[in-house]
Each structure stands twice: as C-alpha cells, then as structure tokens.
C-alpha cells in the first residue's frame, strides 16, 4: 500500500491532521486485577487521555489558523466512541473508531501497527499528533510505533510547533529536554507527540457538542483494514505481561540522632549490614 505523502502544499498550508487518542480511566490511581494483570475499569469514569487533549487542541488551532481538516482516531471498545464525540465537540472534523474483537489484547506494538493500518486507509495527511503518553499505561510507545510502521519521521515531547515551513513541506518544532529544548526541522508528513506545555486546551462549545452528538462516526474493523493477522490483537503482541502490581508503600525512614561522630559511626554500621 502506498501513502500519498503531500510535501507539495506550496500555495496554501491547509493541513490535514490526524490525532490519535486513547480513552483512559479518570484516575491517577489505576487499580489492577492481580489475577488477570489487567486494569480494573469498573466504576471508573472514562476520559480522553489528558495528554491527548493537548494534541487535539494543537491540531484544532493549526486548522483554525491555516485551514485544513482534523481527523481523530482511536482504537478501543465500542464505548470509546464517547471519547471521539468529545474530540469532535472540541473542533475535530471527522472521527474513526478502530474496533474489533480481533484487536483486543493488543500491546503497544500491535496497537501502533493497527493504527498505522487505519491511517494508511485514511490516505492523505500532513501531520499526525499524539499525546506524549497515556496516563494509564505510561509507555509513550504507541506514537513512535505508528511513525515507524508508516516510515515517517517522528519527534517526541514537542512543546511548540512552528508551521511556517509547512508550505515547503517541512515543520519546525521545539522538543522539550530536561534542561532547555531542541529545535528540530523535519519534513512532512511526520508524527509529533506533544507535552502539556504546548497549549491550554479549550472547553467544548455547545454548538460543537450538538454537532458531535449528531455526527456519524466511522468504524473500521479487521474486515475493512485487512491487517496481517500475525501482528494484531493478543497473538500479534510480543509483550508478555508477567506480573503487574501496585508497589508497596514506602515505609518511613530511620532518623539517627546524637552527636555527628556517633551518627556517622551508626550510619556506617547500618550500611555495612545492608550490604
């Protein structure tokens, strides 16, 4: 399959942007079923992965400024449609749900392979935006995985996108580093994962919510995508989860008291015993 890369948008920028999102449980304390090693989702409200909200906002801002279209895509169970409708209410134009039992149990390899297959089916695009990682799995692998499967450049941890070069088929971005940032120029199409410093996501608008409620959401299954069975779902996932557990709470430390020289001796003794 070939991708219609379009580095030739010389006259208008008009970006076609794809945003990949994930529906996650709304909690910072993920509970895990110790027997199945999977997340316990019961009784927890589902939201769009908070990092993906920045990707949506950035895509919508680029569209509002330069024209174009934003397509939001997610892989997940049927209820992930709620996340897509929320993305539509925030200004995305089209939504695609990649949903099939055959995709269940995918790890980051299979997920990024499947999503890249769906993106190939979309065809034309200039930019793919993802949040830097999901708040539940925290792997930060799916974005880079998609770019690898599509064989396009990727820049992770982007905190600023300057599309001034877009008419030449390039984009300049600032990439967050621990201290400072890198400036990277990369040809389009490319994939960027964004950090929360990039913008402040808007709240939905009522007209957006009404439009989203009535919008048609495209669902693609394995039948539409015809992906390599060896690379999808549980059997296409090389990752094997041996054990997932909530780390035990740290116990309080030990405070040594007394004269400095005594403390030093005690400490040396304790350390020796530890080793």
């Amino acid at each position: 399959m070939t991708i219609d890369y379009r580095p030739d948008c010389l006259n208008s920028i008009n970006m076609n942007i794809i945003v990949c999102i994930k529906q996650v449980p709304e909690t910072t304390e993920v509970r895990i079923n110790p027997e199945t090693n999977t997340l316990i989702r019961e009784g927890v409200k589902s939201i769009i992965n908070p990092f993906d909200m920045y990707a949506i906002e950035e895509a919508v801002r680029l569209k509002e400024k330069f024209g174009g279209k934003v397509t939001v895509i997610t892989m997940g169970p049927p209820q992930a449609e709620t996340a897509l409708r929320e993305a539509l209410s925030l200004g995305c134009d089209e939504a695609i749900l990649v949903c099939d039992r055959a995709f269940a149990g995918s790890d980051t390899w299979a997920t990024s392979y499947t999503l890249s297959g769906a993106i190939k089916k979309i065809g034309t695009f200039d930019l793919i935006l993802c949040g830097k990682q999901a708040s539940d799995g925290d792997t930060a692998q799916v974005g880079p995985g998609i770019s690898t499967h599509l064989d396009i450049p990727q820049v992770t941890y982007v905190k600023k996108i300057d599309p001034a070069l877009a008419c030449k088929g390039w984009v300049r971005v600032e990439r967050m580093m621990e201290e400072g940032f890198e400036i990277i120029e990369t040809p389009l199409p490319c994939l960027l994962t964004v950090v929360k410093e990039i913008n402040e996501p808007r709240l939905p608008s009522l007209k957006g919510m009404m439009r989203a409620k009535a919008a048609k959401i495209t669902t693609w299954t394995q039948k539409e995508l015809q992906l390599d069975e060896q690379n999808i779902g549980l059997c296409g996932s090389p990752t094997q989860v041996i054990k997932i557990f909530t780390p035990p709470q740290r116990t309080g430390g030990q405070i040594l008291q007394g004269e400095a020289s005594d403390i030093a001796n005690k400490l040396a003794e304790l350390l020796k015993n530890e080793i």
Partner: protein
Amino acid sequence: MDYLLTEEQKMVRELARKIAEDKVRPVAAKYDASEEFPWDVLKVLAQSDLFAIFVPAEYGGTGGGVLDLCLVTEELSRACGGIAVCYAASALGTFPIILFGNEEQKKKYLPDLASGKKIAAFGITEPEAGSDASAIKTTAKKEGDYYILNGLKHFITNGGDAEIYTIIAMTDKTKGARGASAFIVEKGTPGFTFGKKEEKLGIRASSTRELIFTDCKIPKENLLSKEGMGFIVTMKTFDMSRPGVAAQALGIAQGALDVAVKYAKERQQFGKSISSFQGIQWMLADMATEVEAARALVYSCAREIDSGVKDVARDSAMAKMYASDVAMKVTTEAVQILGGYGYMKDYPAEKYMRDAKITQIYEGTNQIQRNIIALQLIKETAK
C-alpha cells in the same frame, strides 16, 4: 430530583457546570475582592456558546429557551453569583431585541450578542424611578430621522462594559406610563457616557454604573417596537428574565448548601463531626428541601414560558420571589453552620450571603413581586 430535562438541556447543564467548576470557582474570590469586570471568564462563556443559548438559531443562536438560560445561570451562580449576573444581564439586555426587534434590528444586533463578541445591558432604573418605573425622567425627543436622548439611568448592570443597551425613555410625558418607548443605544454614541461605578455589598464581579445621556442622537431605526410601547417591552422582558434571576438565587442557595454540607461533615466538635448532630441535620434538611422547592418552581415557570404560555407574570414573580427569599435564608443558615469560619472571608460562605441579598431587590423588589401575585389573585377571583 429528576426534572426530565431533554438531552440537549442536560448537555447545556453539563457544559455550564464544567465551566463553573474549572473557570469560575477558582477566580470567584479574586473578582469579589477586586471588583474588576471578569472579561476572561466571559470570553470562555462566549467561546462555549453560552451566550447563544437564548438566541434563535436564525440569528446565530442555538435556539434554546428560558429553561436553558436558567440552567446555565444556576450552574454559574453556584460558583459565583457575581460572574453569573454579568452573563444573565446580557440576556436581559438581549431579550427586548428578541421579543420586539424588527428583522433589521435582529440581524444587526443578535449575531454579535449570540457569539458573545458583544454583551448587552438593560436600562430603566433612575435615581427617582425604582419600583415606580413610570416616574422615569429620561426623555427621547424626535427630531427628523433621529431621537435625542437626555437623562440619567443608574444602577445599570453591565453598564460601561456592555456594547448594546436597551434604554427606556419618555417620548411623550403627558401620557405617563404609555408615553415611554424603548431604544437600542450603542456604546460610543456621542452624548452617551458613563458615570460612577457603584461599590456593592455582593455580586462584586459585576459592574453597576450610571448611564448619562446628554443630547445623545440616535437613529430613529433604533426605536424598538413603536412609540409608547416602552413599558410593555419592559414588562414582557422582565417576565422572560425573572426566572433567570430566580435561577441565580437558586444557584447561590445551592452553592451555599454544598459548602455547608461539606463543612458539617468535616468539622469536628465534641469528638465527632457536627453533621452527626440533629440540630445541624435539621437545618441542612430544611435548606435542601427549600432549595429543591425553589428549583421546581423556577424550572416549571421557565418551561411554561418556553412552551408559549402568554400570561406568565404571576408565575414568573412567584419564582423570582420564592427562590430569592430561599437564597437569603439558606445562605444565612450556611454562615451559621460554619460558625466563626462562616463569617470570615477565608471561607466561601459569607460571599454567598452577600451575593444572595440583591436577588430579593433587583428586577422588581420582592414586595413588587408580591403586588404582582396579589393583583393577579384578585383579578382572577373578580371574574
């Protein structure tokens, strides 16, 4: 209680609640202290289309009704009664154009009001014309293609910050109330200036100013309806907007109740939380019941208006009067439950009490509301 809201109304409420929690509550104390106009919050309301909900779809609105307006006002007031009134007062200033504007006027003004690009205000009150609205002295004299306005309006909510004003002025003094007319006046019109900004007990995020008209020349096309219709415009506008004030009172009461319940559960005295004391429980139970009764009345009245019932003066007055009396009572009780903390500005209870008071006064004092209700009763029994 389930009020059987439509899917769209639930959506409106959910959106307003999110904005109230994320964008209004965090800045409520700041604007209460500074008395600055909350432009940044109003911008968020505009972006979220909340100014569009009470405007017909053909003029850029979403075609919602008075109930939608009430849901938004209630949710905003739960976080800050002052910011909520900046919003609701724009609806008050917009209603005359929706109800009485001709096609040109609607096309010219409503889209910008629906998008929140401009906000509106309504001006009838004068220093010597409060409850007795027929005593207004501002005049509008017709000269050729213009009306010349002279006079002073005061206590005008959104005054100075709004762009579009509906002003009631006398076109024929000899006719008394029937000599009043309604005009659309734009900010920036020569001869239209603003006087002092009032310092207030509550709703301090909202602006309240004098409007001064000195030979202010406005095109005759800005007359709403016909000459002599000023009081009809006012009465019909208030019939529509009173549920909004009632919803503001309702939201303030609910907000205070929320604070009181939370505090009562947390506050430990005599070795247990004060919510375990029957004295506190009964207070909370009464407060919750009265808030719910007010809500039922406000929503019913709003629904009645939306379904096109003509004469709603009595019900609208009842909703406004009851909800605001409940708000005053519930907020006072909330301060009582919080005790010394309730009296201090570090806690949110006292602000609800200060914000509640105005709802018993403006858009017709509660005594005037009782007059309206009683008059209707007497008229009905005379048949």
